[in-house]
């Protein structure tokens, strides 16, 4: 069958071929997920539920590999940016004939429909339709737990040497603390926001464990994935109008001061 001849990464290149540029890894994951689930595209990636929606770690792996092969460029500007190269375009033009026309049409429709959505709206769309929210009491319980965990993490990271990474960790979780203290959202948005913050903190907890024996290691780690996650966290907080994004240029600083 013609579909079987497609390379595993075909959908990544195809999405970039159509859009030219994708500005964060969350969106790329969602387009591929929707193309597979709603568009019935022959995509081999297996998705699991994560706080920012369905994801598949192999996609990131293949993106890096496509970058190494020169089919796309991968850069980081506060979030991952993927762009197709001329070689990538040629590669797509080579395999596009093997992609059935109806698959191309449904994939194009998904890209057209969802590429204009903000990263948070896209995430919520996918999660609202495909993931069941938690009951309210469970959310409240989770919120209390997160507040306690942030206090603990802030205290632990306060002993780390001051450097770009430790400042980033302290600042970002301190922002999450303010968000949790201020949020008073309805059930669905609360559930979404708590899921995102919980997911973000999960990564920070892993980082804490990694550096427990050797705190100096933190200064040498590349935190680009975590930085991109924090961008999503801020966008969600701003989208739900809890607190503006911390890096929003035009915001009044008093929004981030207690009292």
């Amino acid at each position, binding site marked *: 069958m013609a579909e079987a001849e497609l390379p595993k990464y075909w959908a990544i290149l195809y999405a970039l071929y159509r859009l030219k540029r994708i500005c964060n890894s969350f969106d790329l994951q969602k387009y591929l997920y929707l193309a597979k689930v709603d568009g019935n595209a022959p995509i081999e990636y297996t998705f699991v539920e994560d706080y920012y929606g369905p994801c598949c770690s192999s996609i990131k792996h293949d993106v890096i590999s496509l970058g190494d092969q020169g089919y796309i460029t991968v850069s980081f500007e506060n979030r991952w940016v993927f762009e197709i190269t001329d070689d990538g375009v040629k590669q797509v033009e080579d395999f596009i004939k093997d992609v059935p026309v109806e698959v191309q049409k449904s994939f194009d429709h998904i890209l057209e429909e969802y590429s204009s959505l903000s990263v948070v709206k896209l995430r919520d769309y996918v999660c609202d339709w495909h993931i069941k929210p938690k009951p309210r009491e469970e959310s409240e319980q989770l919120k209390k737990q997160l507040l306690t965990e942030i206090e603990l993490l802030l205290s632990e990271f306060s002993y780390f040497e001051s450097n770009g990474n430790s*400042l980033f960790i302290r600042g970002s979780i301190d922002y999450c603390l303010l968000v949790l203290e201020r949020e008073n959202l309805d059930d669905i948005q609360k559930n979404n926001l708590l899921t995102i913050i919980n997911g973000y903190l999960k990564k920070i907890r892993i980082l804490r464990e990694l550096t427990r024996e050797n705190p100096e290691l933190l*200064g040498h780690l590349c935190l680009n994935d975590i930085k991109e996650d924090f961008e999503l966290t801020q966008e969600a907080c701003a989208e739900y109008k809890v607190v503006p994004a*911390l890096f929003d240029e035009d915001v009044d600083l008093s929004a981030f001061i207690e009292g």
Partner: protein
Amino acid sequence: MTTESQAQKRVIYDANSIIYYCFMHKEKIRGRTVTFMVLELTNKIQSLTEQFLTDGIEIETISGVMKEIFDKGIAKIVDEFCEDYRVKDLIGLPGKARISNRIRLRLARKTEEKIRRLQNKAWFKVIDYHAEEKEIKRVKNFYVSLSRTPKMEEHMKKKRTRDPYPSDVDMTLLVYSKETEAPIVTNDSDLIDFKEELERGGLCFGIIIDP
């Protein structure tokens, strides 16, 4: 070969000079606009930079300095800045209160972004430079030779360090200055405390103390 007039057409900035140059941020606080800047230093390095540009002097640094800036330099300066009671006043916090980590991160990000924009200016160059090991050793030996002098003892006491020599990046800067015949603009005590000795010993081309 570098002629004297060519050599004078550029200066080398160290990490602090670059950070202070970019550390000027306008923020709205409760509706009024305030400027965050390192009072004694930002104005001076900005005027000095303007003067260099008027005189047709190019400004450059080495890749190691840029790495140091993003790894540690900005965080260190933001933390020092946020401990200043005048900054707390500006935000409207009492002297004993601590400026939150999130505000520190916001200031750090703004500084980072300005420095990234600086890298796109035609008059500012980042040179990918790595000094030869023997040259670094020469600088290190020079500092070690000063170990037992009262001046070095005083310097080490002030800096609370056991090593008489500066960081690898600072030593690379010295070697680069010597090689390119361009002076270093710095307020780093590791360099300015020994300006005369370094210049006299031919360890660098020159040191311009900023401010």
